[in-house]
């Protein structure tokens, strides 16, 4: 059984609890154990970097140090947490002075980070450690005929970590195919949803959400799959506001990829946190809906 340290991040405690639930359920079913970090703290989102980068590195390093103690690599389900932890680990490895200073601060919590932890995004666990073939072999209820728009968003793939493809990645599509669904290709799958601007620059963010939804709908997506709580909230919760703002009529379900995988693995909806969303999975063939026991959309 593969085992990882697991850093849920603040959003997964409440706002994205369905992501947390479905992550735990699906990994367990696929033979991967996620151990939640003891007493983890906020990764700092992007905001610390505006104020004090040394503080930002220290906060991430505390979580990395807690993970290092367990001897396991660490997994983050949120793209922003992942990016922050990944690059903090990289910077501390490269910059001795920075590592020394940050570790001096960590002493206050009896911690030390030596740089021996690999940081992964949750979707990488599915795409690499489990792999689409293994996933496919475990599927009991293939999501046949469902057109799913893989939404990569930003910080899983950007900035570039090594030499990986940052323009046309395929790992999300492969996971969708593995569960029997149809991954759709749409031009905005790599574009930013504006999640970090929804508070500070609302009009810009809502426009970005609208463009993304439009691009998915134009390509007949029945559902958008995300791998980030920020993207999910932005694309789903703000859909009503987009409709009010632009006179559109979007009703696109936006689900975590782990929820969709969970359905295909035959895990009951309730255990996947299904029912907490604003836009229920609906514009899908009736047969599938009935099979899943999903509520019909009411207007």
């Amino acid at each position, binding site marked *: 059984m593969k085992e990882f340290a697991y850093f849920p991040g*603040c959003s997964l*405690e*409440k*706002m*994205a*609890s369905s992501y947390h639930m479905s992550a735990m359920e699906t990994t367990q079913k696929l033979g991967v154990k996620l151990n939640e970090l003891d*007493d*983890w*703290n*906020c990764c*700092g*989102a992007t*905001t*610390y*970097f*505006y*104020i*004090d*980068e*040394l*503080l930002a590195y*220290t906060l991430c390093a*505390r979580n990395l140090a807690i993970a290092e103690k367990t001897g396991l690599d660490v997994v983050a389900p949120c793209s922003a947490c992942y990016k922050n932890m990944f690059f903090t680990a990289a*910077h501390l490895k490269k*910059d001795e002075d920075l590592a020394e*200073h*940050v570790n*001096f*601060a*960590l*002493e*206050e*919590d*009896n911690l030390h980070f030596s740089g021996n932890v690999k940081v992964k995004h949750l979707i990488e666990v599915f795409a690499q450690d489990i792999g689409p073939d293994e996933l496919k072999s475990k599927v009991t209820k293939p999501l046949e005929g469902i057109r799913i728009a893989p939404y990569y968003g*930003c*910080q899983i793939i*950007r*900035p570039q970590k090594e030499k990986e493809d940052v*323009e046309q990645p395929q790992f999300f599509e492969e996971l969708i195919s593995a569960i029997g669904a149809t991954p759709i290709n749409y031009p905005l799958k790599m*574009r*930013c949803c*504006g*999640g*970090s*601007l929804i*508070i*500070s*620059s*609302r009009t*810009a*963010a809502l426009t*970005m959400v609208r463009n993304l939804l439009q691009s998915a709908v134009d390509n007949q997506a029945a559902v958008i799959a995300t791998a980030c709580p920020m993207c999910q909230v932005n694309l789903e*919760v*703000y859909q*009503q*506001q987009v409709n*009010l703002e632009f006179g559109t009529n979007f009703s696109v379900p936006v689900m975590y990829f782990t929820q969709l995988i969970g359905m295909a693995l035959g895990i009951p909806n309730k255990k996947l946190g299904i029912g*907490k*969303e*604003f836009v229920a999975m609906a514009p899908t063939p009736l047969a599938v809906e009935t099979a899943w026991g999903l509520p019909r959309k009411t207007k």
Partner: protein
Amino acid sequence: MTDTITFGQEISNLLHAAEGEPLKTCIQCGTCSGTCPVAGYMDNSPRQIIALINLGKKEQVLESNTFWYCASCYHCTVRCPQEINITELMYALKRYSIWKNRYKEGLIGPTFSEAFVKMIVRGGRSFEPVLATSYIFSFNTREFVQEIQGATELLLKGRLPLLPARIKRLENFRRMIGRIIPMGGLE
């Protein structure tokens, strides 16, 4: 040692490794502006901001809203043919304007960032309801109502926390921060 430095050097000194002047290598190709999903809302595009920095136009840069509109999507960064980390530059400019207390009036970004960091420094984890008070009153009536409606629905679906989450070893955590930011009445 030089007598003084240019604005470009001043900004370069804020970047991660403080090594050389990456902005000087900019060829003004405009790939960043063409890629940026928010360029249309910025009063100066990313390409223009780099040009203004290289020309030493400090006031114009400080008065620009550009860096507060940056969504941190790193699309410009992965495409820049000169490998300039433009997103990091935007962070640096935000930091510069916060430290100088010189950000453009009426922006929610800086206040929101300040409230966010303050919240984490106190409790270790994020708590949306407190955070909301830092911006909700800057919204116009329509936005305000929409935001409250959204929040209410989240609450009904059990997606908003009612109590702030705090980490257990908070005292250690605060002392840890005290070693990085030497401020605040500890002890």
